[in-house]
């Protein structure tokens, strides 16, 4: 038995440490912990509630829009505006969020994950010489290979011509994801940390020239998604077929859904969303019951009474707590761990019979020679992102055409003195919830339960590991100095530690005096 520590896990958002116990070349047990704490809930308190949509974007600069969206939905509820957000406001929010889904998914596969499958250093001389490859070749010839080398020794399986195309796509993807952000800037002012999403709708107004610019940029993104991103994913699927099994977390999936097609009122499962909400337990789909969400702290460094529903929870440390090993709480749904994210959304949408998802997934299954029950794990997550990107490039065009220049995009109402609001949406990385309480006109309490807290959660009272921990068990580690499979699995979740580690304390080794914890 040997414990391997990987710190930092790079090519993810934020600071993550992974420890795996390896025996006989296979992972037996895994633990994950975040190593940055900033304290958003603390400095949100006492501020103007409207500022939450701006400040919570700073939780994560990779998917700030999802936080702005969840925050605005919570604010809509607190201000009594949920049913009054004008169609332009609802649609522009969807266009801004949808463009960032595209950006995030493309960035995740090419900039963050591709280096685990594509060998940038192995560019052969033959074949067509695209501009992107000329730049790479000159770079390789100069021989200073940072930041692509050093790296773990990895088994690269893509055929030469596919690897070559994927290198060109790696470079092209940098341009395409940039265009996605330009699409957001048209209506959001700028990106990242766009400025438009606001309580009651958005601050900007649609114009025909803006719509035309958006569609022109979208066309370039769609071409890349359908002719490079999806084919590259299928090529990786053919080269690494066992990666649909490798990295499975179990069979529980949760999604709040995203992209409201009607005013966001009532229970989240009843809302008309392009990505539907739902909970899949052992292959059976049911409606999301928000009251079934709890946060378990049995194996977390918090006092036992911290276990509660989100929004009611508190954060009191218990450093010497026996059996605890993580500063993340463990969100559970009906007392069980649930994976959130693109694979969860795909499972929910497929089982809900959502037509566009079902058709696209069936197409990919046929291409990869798979049945739905084989679709999961590391590649299931990557493939789900590509499928979502393809669906969104079509949907965004429809939505842009529904805008009506000249009509309002924002509803107004008097700021409440005392109110509560909950904002539930899916972020690119999964189910995201903001719980807001307003008192005396200021933020009294603000709690976030973010995707990575679900996925990177520790074990619970019943000893059930969190999804990433489960996914790592059984992973092969052929060479302990090069735990490639471990980081491949972790990255497939697209973890965002800046998001996850926000209400936790910190471990400190104080000159050998043991652990000291301070939770502000």
């Amino acid at each position, binding site marked *: 038995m040997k414990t391997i*520590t990987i*710190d*930092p*896990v*790079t*090519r993810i958002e934020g*600071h993550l440490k992974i420890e795996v116990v390896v025996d006989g070349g296979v992972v037996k047990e895994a633990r994950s912990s975040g*190593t*940055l*704490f*900033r*304290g958003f809930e*603390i*400095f949100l308190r006492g501020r*103007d509630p409207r*500022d939450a949509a701006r400040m919570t974007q700073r939780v*994560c*600069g990779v998917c700030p829009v999802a936080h702005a969206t969840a925050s605005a939905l919570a604010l809509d509820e607190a201000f009594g505006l949920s049913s009054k957000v004008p169609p332009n406001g609802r649609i522009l929010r969807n266009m801004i969020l949808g463009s960032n889904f595209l950006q995030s998914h493309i*960035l995740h596969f090419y*900039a963050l994950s591709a280096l685990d499958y594509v060998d*940038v250093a192995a560019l052969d001389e033959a074949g067509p010489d695209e*501009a*992107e490859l000329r*730049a790479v070749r*000159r*770079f390789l010839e*100069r021989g*200073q290979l*940072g*930041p692509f080398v*050093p*790296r*773990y020794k990895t088994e690269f399986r893509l055929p030469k011509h596919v690897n070559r195309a994927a290198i060109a796509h790696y*470079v092209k993807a940098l*341009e395409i994801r940039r265009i996605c952000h*330009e699409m*957001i800037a*048209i209506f*959001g*002012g*700028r990106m*990242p*940390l766009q*400025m*438009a999403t606001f309580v009651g709708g*958005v*601050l*900007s*107004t649609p114009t025909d020239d803006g719509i035309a*610019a958006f569609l022109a940029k979208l066309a370039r993104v769609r071409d890349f998604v359908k002719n490079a991103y999806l084919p590259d994913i299928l090529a990786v699927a053919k080269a690494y077929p066992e990666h649909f099994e490798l990295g499975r977390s179990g069979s529980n999936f949760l999604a709040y859904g995203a992209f409201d097609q009607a005013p966001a009122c009532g229970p989240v499962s009843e809302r008309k969303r392009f990505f539907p909400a739902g909970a899949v337990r052992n292959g059976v789909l049911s409606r999301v019951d928000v009251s079934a969400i709890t946060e378990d702290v049995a194996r977390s460094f918090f006092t036992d009474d911290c276990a509660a529903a989100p929004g009611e929870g508190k954060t009191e440390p218990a450093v010497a707590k026996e059996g605890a090993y993580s500063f993340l709480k463990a969100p559970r749904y009906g007392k069980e761990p649930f994976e959130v994210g693109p694979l969860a959304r795909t499972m929910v949408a497929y089982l809900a019979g959502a037509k566009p998802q079902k058709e696209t997934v069936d197409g990919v299954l046929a291409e990869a020679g798979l049945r739905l029950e084989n679709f999961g794990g590391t590649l299931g997550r990557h493939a789900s992102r590509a499928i979502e990107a393809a669906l969104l490039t079509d949907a965004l065009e429809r939505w842009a055409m529904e805008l009506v220049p000249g009509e309002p995009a*924002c509803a*107004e109402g008097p700021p409440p003195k005392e109110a509560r609001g909950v904002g539930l949406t899916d972020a690119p990385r999964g189910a995201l919830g903001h719980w807001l309480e307003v008192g005396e006109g200021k933020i009294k309490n603000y709690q976030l339960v973010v995707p990575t807290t679900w996925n990177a959660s520790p074990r619970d009272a019943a000893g059930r590991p969190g999804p990433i921990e489960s996914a790592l068990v059984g992973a092969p580690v052929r060479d302990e100095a090069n735990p490639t499979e471990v980081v491949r699995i972790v990255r497939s979740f697209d973890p965002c530690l*800046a998001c996850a580690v926000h209400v936790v304390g*910190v*471990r*400190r*080794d*104080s000159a050998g005096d043991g652990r*000291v914890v301070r939770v*502000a």
Partner: protein
Amino acid sequence: MSPAQARPGKVVEVPAIWIQGAGCTGCSVSVLNGVAPDISAVLLDQVVPGKHLNLRFHPTIMAGSGEVALRILAENSAEGGAKGGYVLVVEGAVPTAEGGAFCELGEESGRPVPFAEHVERLSRGALAVIALGDCAFSGGIPSCSPNPTGCKGVSAFLASKGISTPVVNIGGCPPNPDWFLGAVAHILLRGLPEAGELDPWGRLRLFHGKLVHDNCQRRAYFDTARFARHPGEQGCLYLLGCKGPMTYADCPDRQWNGGTNWCVRAGAPCMGCAEARFFERFGPVYEKVTDDRLARLREV
């Protein structure tokens, strides 16, 4: 594709180490949005003729993880024997409370290494430090009251450690990619900025020399007292909380995302993000800055 690509001749490799502390990766994502030069040209090609920025460490894009990644930091720190050979880019604030334990990066002999310690070691050996974005510049978002993690900007942190390596501050939450790439080009072409090129906050006047308000497309509305009072209205956004009159940045000229747009043009009041600790000093975002606070905003 820059014209530099076609040129023959020797290319000088300028090593850069980019580390992230108490931040959100938004600065990195913003720099990815650069258009001229674009990020692939920065990574693969010459930023200015004959010089390539050799990005040895960047946690979000580098290939290596764990030990493989940490070794790069060790080799480049002052102890590793490297002196003055690289540019250090810091993104995010430096948490200093509890011995820096609120942000840790890697382990040494089983001991988690505080981010602050990395900043200290790497700064000593650096040619210069670029403090990128409001958090690295001033402490930024995580230093908001009550600053639970004791976050500091890089300049303040290095001063507390008696380290005199030159620091170039770049404001913004996020910074405009041109401010970073332009600063890099400026340093590669002309060397480190002279005192007169920096403003009292240590930012390049090239980007932070003008008030947003003075160059705003909506300035004529302000001069004729036509103020927007509701979202989506035409008019000056001052009464909706615009901080353009207190913010030094070239956003109205340069704009964002390759000239696509900028905040005020999209109907959103400037929130002053180019200024030190903007959320704390300028908030609430959607309230006009009161006169009593205006006087204090000029303090360095």
